[in-house]
């Protein structure tokens, strides 16, 4: 296994850029489809969170495990989940990863190292800790990583799983995306602590705050934590400060959010920032950018068409696969 370094090479930087752009494009398309009434289910958009979604997950290696939550579809792209899989899932088609059983972003693939999460927050924090426990028991140099929002840190599972991971010194990285809101609830009504990362002190594990809109910083801090976990250094808590740029879900116009805040964070768009970084280093030009975006748009259109043309499952499959064997 070749392990990624703290310094990203050109190919890696461009891969990250591709995933961020792909994530953005998929979500923009999902938004259109949702508004057009074309999706049976809901959408939870992570627009503006591309840096932490992609940057942290990109720090994982093959064989590692990722446990995202409802808004973290983009974190699954570096694990190999494809646009086609995302759209067939939303379209509830038989060839989706959950065969139409699961909804929205709740898909995964163990072989590619990503779990299919559930709604209950943050139930995959324990699950990720359990994967890490398996790695530890078997003496495998593998790492588990899990995401949740700052709102989910109020839930008992969050506390229990981090504490147990700390006591057992498990190779797991806990990411919290602090995007300012839990549904309509602003952070100050969720907690009084200034930083979620400060809660690391309650478990005697390292805690770090990263600029959630700076993909390089997101990658580097996470990579350090992943390396530490892999080397037997135990869990880390990383808080990424960012902003939710859409309503909680497709149906929510988010009138409770001040437009000034949205404007402010629009100017901090993580993709634009990363593009400037790439342009400064001569890795991106207007032309190559256009080329990438076009390619991605075609990929997304192709995926949408594929999903729309894909068949629904047959009704009777509703009672299949309740049990294994």
């Amino acid at each position, binding site marked *: 296994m070749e392990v990624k370094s703290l310094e990203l090479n050109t190919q890696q930087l461009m891969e990250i850029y591709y995933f961020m752009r792909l994530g953005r494009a998929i979500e923009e398309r999902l938004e259109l489809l949702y508004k057009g009434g074309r999706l049976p289910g809901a959408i939870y958009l992570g627009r503006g969170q591309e840096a932490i979604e992609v940057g942290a997950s990109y720090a994982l290696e093959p064989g590692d495990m990722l446990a995202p939550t409802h808004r973290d579809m983009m974190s699954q792209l570096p694990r190999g989940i494809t646009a086609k899989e995302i759209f067939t899932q939303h379209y*509830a*088609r*038989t060839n989706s990863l959950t065969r139409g*059983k699961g*909804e929205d972003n709740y898909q995964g693939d163990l072989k590619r190292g990503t779990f299919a999460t559930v709604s209950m927050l943050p139930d995959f924090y324990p699950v990720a800790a359990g994967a890490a426990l398996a790695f530890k028991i078997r003496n495998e140099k593998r790492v588990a990583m899990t995401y949740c929002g700052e709102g989910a840190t109020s839930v008992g599972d969050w506390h229990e799983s981090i504490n147990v991971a700390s006591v057992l010194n498990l190779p797991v990285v806990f990411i919290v995306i602090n995007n300012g809101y839990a*549904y*309509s609830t602003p952070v100050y009504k969720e907690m009084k602590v200034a930083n979620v990362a400060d809660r690391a002190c309650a478990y005697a594990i390292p805690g770090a705050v990263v600029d959630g809109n700076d993909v390089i910083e997101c990658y580097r801090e996470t990579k350090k934590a992943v390396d530490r976990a892999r080397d037997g250094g135990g869990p880390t808590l990383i808080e990424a400060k960012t902003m939710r740029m859409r309503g909680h879900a497709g149906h929510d116009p988010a009138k409770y959010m001040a437009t000034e805040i949205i404007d402010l964070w629009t100017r901090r768009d993580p993709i634009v920032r990363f593009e400037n970084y790439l342009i400064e280093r001569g890795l991106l030009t207007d032309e190559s950018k256009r080329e990438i975006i076009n390619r991605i748009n075609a990929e997304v259109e192709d995926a949408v068409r594929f999903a729309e043309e894909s068949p629904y499952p047959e*009704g009777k499959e*509703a009672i299949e696969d309740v049990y294994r064997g």
Partner: protein
Amino acid sequence: MSTAGNQKGTSYIDAISQALWEEMERDPSIFIMGEDIGIYGGAFKVTEGFIDHFGPERVIDMPIAEEAFIGMGVGAALMGMRPIVEVQYADFISCGWDQIVNVAAKMHYRTRDAVPMVIRGPSGAGLRAGPFHSQSPEGWFAHVPGLKVIVPGTPYDAKGLLKAAIRDDNPVIYFEHKYLYRRLKEVLPTGDYTVPISKADVQREGDDVTIVTYGAMLQTALEAARRAQEKGISVEVVDLRTIFPLDKDTILNSVAKTSKAIMLYEDTRTLGIGAEISAIIAEEGFENLDGPIIRVSSPDAPIPYSPPLEDFFLPQVDDVLAAIDKLSAY
């Protein structure tokens, strides 16, 4: 699921909002807590405008912490308040399970202290919301002595039962079927009224077959009854309304009349509430039975997301008609 019927009047969801509003006006010891219920007015807008009128002391936004705020409900109730806890979806009530079954439900038995408290939330399927936003968790709670469990099937009952639940001195689980929220309307009385807890309602009288049901399935039952009538079969439809503790008399009286019984429920088959009613009839109404007690329910599976899967999963009018036909052969 069909929702034909009176489409004028107050919707099921508005009936719920009205009950909450009127009760809060009436009794200052009532307050509501839950996620996003304040300025946002709740995920389904049940409490829209409440915070402006009643203030943030009585309409309290909570962090995501179902165990904590359900337990807090018990504490406040023991201190003489009448808390109403909203769970954003009924599915998330599982995250507060321990406080409900071990603290709230067993309190009065141990100490004779009343726990006047309502836990309410939107349950039920039909909206393509997948395994985690479509559950009908009532069966679990009907197996918890000390709780009362209500699932209203009409706007009238939704309002009257919620008022009764709020005035009750016990912990009450109140599930609102979200498929009905805006699909079912009914002209409601203008004045204050309550609907008694643990009283079933004969929604349609008939002589040949009894269907015992509740929640959104009431509409399915009524539609099946209408269609059976066209074939000359007279179906009685009993709406349980409260599923625990049950109103045995109404059920047994109906079966005594028709001699044939169908249990229709959206919850999964094994140990859904229809199992209990079958068992009651098989024990206490056996002498009156002229045929098997048929259950029409969701299968023993999680609730799938995809439309064809969910349609297959949910009991349909045709399934009920098939059961009626089968019983008619007896």
